[in-house]
């Protein structure tokens, strides 16, 4: 099809094609919900509230982005993100005397190494993906407890730009970092050979292997990205709170999975884009914030989040079926 025939209807068709309809609906719903909340909820659009939405979206979102590479490449999900984030928060605080960027690099290196090890076990040694990451989660938590003696480590220096600095009122640096990772991730996933191979591995593992794609390397890469994606939120939370401990990232695994699934990434692999992960994260962050500013309790927020996951995926499945 030439560019000239790419009429308005075909753009519409692409956005609402069975494989894209859930992602599109969630993107529209996020924008509508945000605008309605701005109009009707007092102080919702204030700089401090917007930045609190962005803080929570950035940490969960970065973890979900890394996780999405595992999911899209066909290995369902990883359950070691929370303990990786916890260990990274401890490393960040321990290294924070060297400055913000070296400390961030140190926790990132930790995440990369743990991700690489899991990637080798799953990709090279062909072990069960989910159980390998459950085992890794337990081992990483054990190491982190051993290193920190089970205690909370406190930063000696004061708050840094990474923890609480803002580019402009309402836009923390953490959100800028999140945006940068989304853009780089989207380009890598959609426009490079590695991204293409990663997606094809998820669509059909056997065919990808038979076709001579670098399957093992892509699986290892996806876990390296997931490890990095888990370490960064750990560092960000540590930078913001000035503490590192084992409770950092307690809900990270399932929050990241939920955000990714709501956004329209298929759990079975091959389908979904990096921007979908970002929109799913923002959808849940805005929804949770609306409940929060209306003084709904934590348990109500959890129940609504569970319902949102169910409804988004059910609606996606129904709409996709209708179009077929």
């Amino acid at each position, binding site marked *: 099809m030439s560019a000239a025939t790419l009429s308005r209807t075909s753009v519409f068709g692409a956005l609402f094609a069975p494989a894209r309809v859930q992602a599109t609906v969630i993107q529209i719903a996020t924008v509508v919900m945000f605008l309605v909340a701005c109009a009707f909820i007092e102080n919702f659009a204030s700089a401090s509230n917007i930045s609190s939405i962005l803080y929570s979206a950035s940490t969960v979102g970065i973890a979900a982005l890394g996780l999405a590479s595992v999911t899209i490449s066909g290995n*369902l*999900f990883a*359950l070691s993100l929370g303990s990786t984030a916890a260990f990274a928060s401890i490393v960040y605080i321990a290294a924070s005397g060297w400055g913000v960027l070296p400390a961030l690099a140190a926790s990132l290196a930790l995440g990369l190494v743990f991700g690489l090890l899991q990637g080798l*076990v799953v990709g*090279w*040694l*062909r*072990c*069960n993906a*989910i*159980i*390998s990451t*459950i*085992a*890794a*989660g*337990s*081992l*990483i*938590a*054990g*190491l982190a*407890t*051993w290193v920190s003696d*089970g205690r909370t480590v406190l930063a000696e220096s004061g708050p840094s730009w990474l923890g609480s600095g803002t580019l402009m009122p309402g836009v923390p640096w953490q959100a800028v970092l999140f945006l940068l990772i989304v853009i780089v991730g989207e380009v890598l996933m959609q426009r490079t050979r590695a991204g293409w191979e990663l997606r094809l591995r998820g669509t059909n593992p056997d065919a990808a292997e038979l076709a001579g794609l670098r399957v093992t390397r892509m699986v290892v890469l996806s876990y390296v990205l997931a490890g990095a994606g888990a370490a960064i939120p750990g560092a960000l939370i540590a930078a913001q709170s000035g503490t590192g401990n084992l409770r950092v990232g307690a809900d990270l695994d*399932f929050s990241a*999975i*939920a955000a990714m*699934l709501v956004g329209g990434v*298929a*759990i*079975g692999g091959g389908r979904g884009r990096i921007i979908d992960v970002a929109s799913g994260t923002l959808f849940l962050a805005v929804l949770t914030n609306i409940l929060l500013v209306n003084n709904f*309790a*934590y*348990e*109500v*927020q*959890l*129940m*609504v*989040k*569970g*319902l*949102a*996951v*169910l409804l988004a*995926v*059910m609606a996606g*499945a*129904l709409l996709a*079926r209708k179009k077929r």
Partner: protein
Amino acid sequence: MKTLAENPLLALRWLLLLGMTLIFTAANSYFLAAGNIFALGESFALLGLVALGLALTMLAGEFDLSGGAMVSVAGLIMLKCGADNALLGLLAALAFGGLVGLFNGIVTLKLGVSSLVTTLGVMILLSGFAVWLEGGQAVSFENYDLTDAFNMDWFGILSPRSVITIALFVITGLMLAFTRMGRDIIAVGSHRKAAGMAGADVRGAVVTTFVLSGLFAALAGALLAITLGRASSTFGANLLLQGASAAILGGVALSGGIGRPFGVAIGVLVLAVLNNGLGLIGASSPAILLLNGGVLLIAVLAGGAPGTWLRARLA
């Protein structure tokens, strides 16, 4: 050596069980005392029921993430509805578990959504519901007679809970081996399309596994609440991951069709013995986490390329 060559994982879990029993007995002679075997039976009962339900869904090629959260909710329902009449509470908890299982099964089948997704949503929903039911304060049970009855022992080692759990393992094993529904579940998990064409009741089998998984988890939570005389939203916290670990350790394959309740029971026993023994010898919390991870890692490696390599060498 022959078994080891045929199935390294099968031999591995026996080796683990035997080795740990020897080490813990050597370290602390109380390990094999009646009182400790009673305690082992109690942890077997809790983890066992969750793992058995999860294993059934895995056998049919699905996966139920909501079992752990269901334990918390069912315990709270049991005590909230059963304050005056315990039977009513138990029935309410079981009915809730069965209905949630039915929902999981129907949504998964009707919408063609992966059960990982359906049950993840339900899991988050249930954990919120548990905190809401708890209402910020400890929920306790005033029916001391019943609690006492559940804490008595038979022959010094068996508790009512462990007897019920062992019975359910046996019944589920017999159901899978000798009934049409059992054969359908295994066939559906092995190859869904072929099973459907061969006349297996695909929908019935999948929905049945989810309902049983919900019922087993609800029963585990209700019995735990009766035995302890209290309920909390944190009871189910680690049960999902432990149950999945036990099922895999027990030889159940994520791809479906492979694994039996007997193997699951051994997998549960391995984890129960490990954690009981480590507690008994006073292991530190990093050691407990590292050894749990280490045992899982060994199991996962035995199921991957290193296991295949070993099999080829030993054959």
